[in-house]
């Protein structure tokens, strides 16, 4: 078996809806048995990319391959290899959980008995066994999502697409969903996960692609992206602004190298990048103490993907800069 063939290839995907360019040449690959997190704010083009890869939408140009199969040329063959869980739990609420699973199994052309066995197995695995023969209308939001994912898994897809799997879930259901996804990852499922939540991408994905306004603006592992945003920093907040320059001198000595400090007089904060994070906070505290400086806070700040996003796009994930697709003017675009 050629295992070096990527499970998913997106190659220069473009898609325009009327006057809006939803995708402007998106490319990425997903190696087998890895998780790709597609991160971006609302309207960035994440769902459009997923819809193209899952044959629901035709790209204007570019290629999309699932296990080497072109999704535009052989949609039914591609569909036989994928599972899709969209933003809204796509379950038939008039049927029971078991009937929903059986239906999808039959439409994957599984033998009835095999589909039934697999359905029971998945209901068990997603803690739906007790609700299996109840009508889905009475299920909670979290149960519906789990059933939705179970339906996507019934025919053992080679690639699973999860489009914002935790959007709209309460915090507890969200954690449950993370556990479910962890389980899939442990099984070696190849997974494409879109999310607006940085913590979710950090927690679940091997590789991350950041999309904004239809462009891939960054890609890499979580560590690579964080390193790109400047790494860890020590932040010292003083009780009184008069000591700012003294402190910055101290910090430059501790951080060593060519680190440049930044001083914010308004918040009475000095920030400096550090390369070695071990014991840096106690060292700083001891030095400040020895100098008799009154500090209110000393913190080692690890960059989050939020910092990365801000660095790359000039806006955070929570507030999309604009919805009309026009490009933001600042930010490090490539």
């Amino acid at each position: 078996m050629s295992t070096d063939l990527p499970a998913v290839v997106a190659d220069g995907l473009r898609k325009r809806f009327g006057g809006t360019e939803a995708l402007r040449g998106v490319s990425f690959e997903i190696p087998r048995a890895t998780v790709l997190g597609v991160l971006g704010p609302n309207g960035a083009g994440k769902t459009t990319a997923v819809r193209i890869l899952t044959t629901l939408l035709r790209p204007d140009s570019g290629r999309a391959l699932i296990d080497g199969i072109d999704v535009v040329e052989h949609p039914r063959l591609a569909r036989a290899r994928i599972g899709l869980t969209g933003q809204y739990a796509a379950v038939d609420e008039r049927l029971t959980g078991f009937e929903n699973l059986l239906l999808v199994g039959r439409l994957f052309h599984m033998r009835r008995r095999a589909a039934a066995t697999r359905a029971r197995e998945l209901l068990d695995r997603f803690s739906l066994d007790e609700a299996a023969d109840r009508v889905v209308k009475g299920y909670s939001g979290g149960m519906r999502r789990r059933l939705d994912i179970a339906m996507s898994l019934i025919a053992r897809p080679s690639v699973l697409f999860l489009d914002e799997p935790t959007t709209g879930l309460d915090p507890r259901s969200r954690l449950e969903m993370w556990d479910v996804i962890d389980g899939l990852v442990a099984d070696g499922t190849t997974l494409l996960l879109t999310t607006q939540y940085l913590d979710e991408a950090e927690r679940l994905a091997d590789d991350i692609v950041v999309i904004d306004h239809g462009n891939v603006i960054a890609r890499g592992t979580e560590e690579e992206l964080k390193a790109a945003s400047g790494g860890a920093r020590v932040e010292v907040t003083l009780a009184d602004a008069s000591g700012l320059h003294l402190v910055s001198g101290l910090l430059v000595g501790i951080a060593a190298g060519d680190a440049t400090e930044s001083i914010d007089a308004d918040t009475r904060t000095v920030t400096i990048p550090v390369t070695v994070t071990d014991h840096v906070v106690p060292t700083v505290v001891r030095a400040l103490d020895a100098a008799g400086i009154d500090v209110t806070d000393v913190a080692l700040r690890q960059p989050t993907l939020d910092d990365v996003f801000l660095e790359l796009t000039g806006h955070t994930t929570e507030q999309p800069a604009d919805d009309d697709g026009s490009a933001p003017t600042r930010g490090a675009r490539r």
Partner: protein
Amino acid sequence: MSPTTTASAPGPDVPGALHRVPTGAAWWFRDTWAEAGRHLIATKRNPDLLVFATIQPIMFVVLFVYVFGGAITVPGYSSYQQFVVPGIFAQTIVFGSAFTSIGIAEDMQKGFIDRLRSLPMYPAAVLVGRTVSDLVRNTFTFIIMLVVGLIVGFRLEGGVVDAVLATLLLLAFSFAFSWIQALIGLSAKSVEAANSAGFIWMFPMTFVSSAFVDPSTMPGWLQPIAEHNPFTVVTDAVRALYNGRDPGADLWISIAWAAGITVVFALLSFRRFSRTSR
């Protein structure tokens, strides 16, 4: 049980995944039946939907027969029942088709259509499964209506063969109208929109017709509309058959309408379905 043909994937095999995509007529039927079964299970579980669908027409039968029946005499018919009950059958069967647009719009809104479109099934099975299950549902509604009709004094004066023929013609129209509704359901932006778009045109269509009164009693400008209304043609054909008369050309014209509507709107719906994206 093995697939008639199995298209082979151009890519290399990946362990663990199911790759068979069977093709051929037998699998087309299986996919369609699986989809129709989804709706039939739901109908069986919620028979109240079926009951509600019959309340309005039953009310019509009772109101028309007992309220207007005394005042209206239609020349050539032994009673108003013999005239109006076939008209109400036709109206019921056409109104029943509105379930198709509402059901499809619901599936679209809830993302279920997207789920189905991402499966390796025959895409057309989604729509055919829906219209076939609605046909089964409308057949049940018709049976209930027939029983109510017989209770209020309607009689199958044309004998069993003509009655069966009339019933089949009604069901063919029900199926044809389901395809109009399928297109409406696929085009509507919401379930509410599908609901009103599915119903609104059926009132003028069924009332500006021969279903309840003779079109010759209508104002002059309305008469040609009523007379050429396909709903009038099928009502006249069905009424003639139930009353043991010769439907004449109405029979062939109504069959042509049913076939024409089915073919045109099924093709439009398939095309719309394959382009649908939300």
